[in-house]
């Protein structure tokens, strides 16, 4: 979504609205109004607001996504323990029901807010905004947003996070990136989790999972780790430190960053404002 007007014109659809493009015509005598707005532009505006809030507090916001049971909460528990006082953590937990995950995080001594979505299969920017009212971001270095366990819907909703992390546990099958391209394409980092189980599984190869990720034109780093055994954890912790250091530098320069791939392809139309489409309703 572009910050100026929320439109989304790509090289692929530009021809539809220019000159005598099909969409420029009025059909059947009625009035046609050209709009060219992302369907989630209201969510995207609220996400941008969240991101400004994170930036103002110098908090790195990380969106954790995966299928249910891939070990997101366990990874957070061990990450909090491993970081100790080096980086101060807060967590927003998304689940359909229960406070269980937030309680597990609180037991580690850090702030955790539980969002229960009822039947909704994903978090959106509004839910995160509401949760932020209950969190004291002063003194927080990294805010983890643990999304609802789901490999489909969460990928479409910007929450205001700076980075997306997608977990793939070794019990799931190494072709998951090929089966759920929208989710894995959105990842700035892919974690192959529960690697301690690789010894008893003969059908999961981390390098195959990585190959499927590369086929999505993704250059995201891939780390294989086990929160349980601690194997592979140092690379992940190092990534967190590096991302936090980069965040601190950006804040000093007044800059921000968004996940590499946006749900609405805003990166593809940096030049979209050279044409004169008119739409004024961006409140």
């Amino acid at each position, binding site marked *: 979504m572009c910050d100026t007007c929320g*439109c*989304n014109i*790509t*090289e*692929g*659809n530009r021809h*539809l*609205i220019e000159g005598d493009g099909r*969409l420029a015509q*009025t*059909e*059947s005598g*009625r*009035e*046609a*109004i*050209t*709009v*060219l*707005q*992302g*369907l*989630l*532009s*209201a*969510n995207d505006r609220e996400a941008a607001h969240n991101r400004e809030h994170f930036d103002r507090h110098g908090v790195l916001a990380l969106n954790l996504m995966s299928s249910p049971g891939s070990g997101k909460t366990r990874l957070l528990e061990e990450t909090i323990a491993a970081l100790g006082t080096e980086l101060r953590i807060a967590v927003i937990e998304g689940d359909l029901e229960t406070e269980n995950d937030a309680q597990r995080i609180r037991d580690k001594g850090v702030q955790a807010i539980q969002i229960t979505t009822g039947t*909704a*299969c*994903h978090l*959106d920017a509004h839910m995160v905004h509401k949760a932020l009212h209950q969190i004291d971001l002063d003194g927080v270095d990294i805010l983890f947003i643990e999304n609802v366990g789901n490999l*489909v*819907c969460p*990928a*479409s*909703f910007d929450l205001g996070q700076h980075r997306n992390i997608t977990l793939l546990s070794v019990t799931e099958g190494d072709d998951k*990136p*090929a*089966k759920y*391209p*929208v*989710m894995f*394409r959105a990842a700035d980092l892919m974690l192959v989790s529960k690697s301690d189980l690789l010894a008893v599984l003969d059908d999961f190869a981390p390098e195959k999972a990585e190959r*499927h990720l*590369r*086929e*999505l*034109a*993704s*250059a995201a780093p891939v780390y294989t780790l086990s929160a349980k055994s601690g194997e592979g954890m140092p690379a992940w912790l190092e990534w967190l430190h590096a991302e936090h250091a980069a965040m601190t530098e950006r804040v000093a320069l007044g800059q921000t960053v968004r996940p590499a791939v946006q*749900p*609405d*392809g805003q990166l*593809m139309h940096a030049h979209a404002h050279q044409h004169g489409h008119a739409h*004024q*309703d961006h409140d």
Partner: protein
Amino acid sequence: MHELAVCQSLMNQVEQIARRENAECVTRILLSVGPLSGVEAQLLIDAFSIASAGTVAEGAVLVIEEQAVRVKCLSCGAESDVRPNRLLCGSCGDFRTRLISGDEMMLMSLELERRENA
């Protein structure tokens, strides 16, 4: 099934525009949707009948233009139509490509009838 949430967001946009344009009713809504947006066209159409009930767009025709997935190679410059889970250059096979179409999730245009003597 997040299409209902997407559809409700669409309805908010449509109602806002209809008010601005002093529309009696909205008769046609045109969307552009690509496979990499994560939204299923058929589910969106199903959700639309629920989300539009009782609104200015009740009974409107929802038209969804499904966009092809197309990439431009950053290595050799070729453009190719590809599958959603294989975004490699169709010409040289390089994985360093840029998506030029296929992740759209956009409201393109509305067709509406204005009130008389507005």
